[in-house]
């Protein structure tokens, strides 16, 4: 039994089936809170727990999916290219929007770590968590934080962005798709961007370019908040 489970095909199939169910539930319930990604994730974790399957067996297959994350991020260039006119006519709003987003994220993390009484090592691990994982880990190492905590926080942040992306514009009365996209990309990197692509072409493109811009701003500004 375990031999079949440790085939890479197991992890891949389980992920696809879980994702299909996630999309199906989302369509049935018609609410953004029934997020397909979070449902799929819980289904995978639940299946592993119920049948007492080790995570390592799942990772045999999931590592193949993981390998695609870098190419998927790279081809986001295509969505930006297709919306290059929108980007050029909104160059300064996008540039300054990602700057404001990065500053707000850094200030909030610093402030809330202080209010919640979290120590400096935790602050060092969380400060960079709004940006794409490789940059976040590099900054954590520079500040002397715990990389594993950064990875977990980057994923939690991305999931929160993915979940809240359809709801936040209503809360803050944002009607402009450019503003919506920049907001998603700044606060929740590629994970939120995958939701922005589902919302619209302009949202997806602006969210994509914001991944790289907010990463640059955060690298430059994070030391000021530590």
């Amino acid at each position, binding site marked *: 039994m375990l031999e079949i489970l440790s085939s890479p095909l197991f*992890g891949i199939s389980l*992920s*696809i089936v879980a*994702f299909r169910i996630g999309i199906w539930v989302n369509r049935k319930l018609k609410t953004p809170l029934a997020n397909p*990604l979070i449902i*799929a*994730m819980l289904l995978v*974790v639940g299946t592993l727990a119920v049948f007492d399957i080790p*995570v390592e067996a799942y990772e045999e297959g999931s*590592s193949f*999916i*993981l390998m695609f994350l*870098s190419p*998927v991020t*790279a*081809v*986001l*260039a*295509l969505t*930006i*290219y297709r919306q290059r006119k929108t980007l050029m006519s909104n160059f300064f*709003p*996008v540039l300054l*929007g990602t*700057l404001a*987003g*990065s500053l*707000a*994220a850094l200030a*909030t993390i610093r402030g809330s*770590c202080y209010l*919640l009484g*979290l120590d400096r090592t935790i602050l060092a691990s*969380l400060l960079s968590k*709004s940006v*794409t994982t*490789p940059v976040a880990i590099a900054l954590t190492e520079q500040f002397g934080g*715990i990389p594993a905590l950064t990875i*977990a*926080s980057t*994923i*939690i942040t991305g999931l929160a*962005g993915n979940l*809240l992306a359809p709801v*936040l*514009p209503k809360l*803050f009365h*944002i009607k402009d798709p450019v*503003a*919506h996209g920049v*907001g998603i990309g*700044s*606060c929740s990197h*590629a994970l939120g*961007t995958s*939701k922005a692509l589902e919302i619209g072409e302009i949202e997806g493109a602006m969210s994509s370019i914001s*991944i*790289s811009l907010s*990463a640059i701003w955060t*690298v430059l500004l994070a030391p000021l908040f530590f």
Partner: protein
Amino acid sequence: MKYLTQLAIIFGLCLVGDLISSLLPFAFPGSVVSMLLILLLLSTNLMKEQSLGESADFMLCNMTFFFIPPGVSIIRYMDIINSIWWQLLVVNIVSVITCFAAASWTVVLVSRAQKALQRRRHA
């Protein structure tokens, strides 16, 4: 064969991105370097959209799917998260909301200011 060629081009450009990233004097991810590199190649007409074609669109259409494994991997970090899980959730969710609000409202305000400036110039 067409799809394989497209995949080879995408993977090849990712490898170039990783190479450039490893040569940079500061930490910047290869995937983002590749994204900017592809954008540069497309804008300068050195590469056509069709070179990435259906394979790229397949990845983009199903992008969310590729985040299931990192999502599941959170359970690996449970022993670190356990003691501070609610604080972690508060910091992460609050900063997502403030960051979104600051970024999107800045875009709205700056583009309004830009339009006002243009109108004044034309008047």
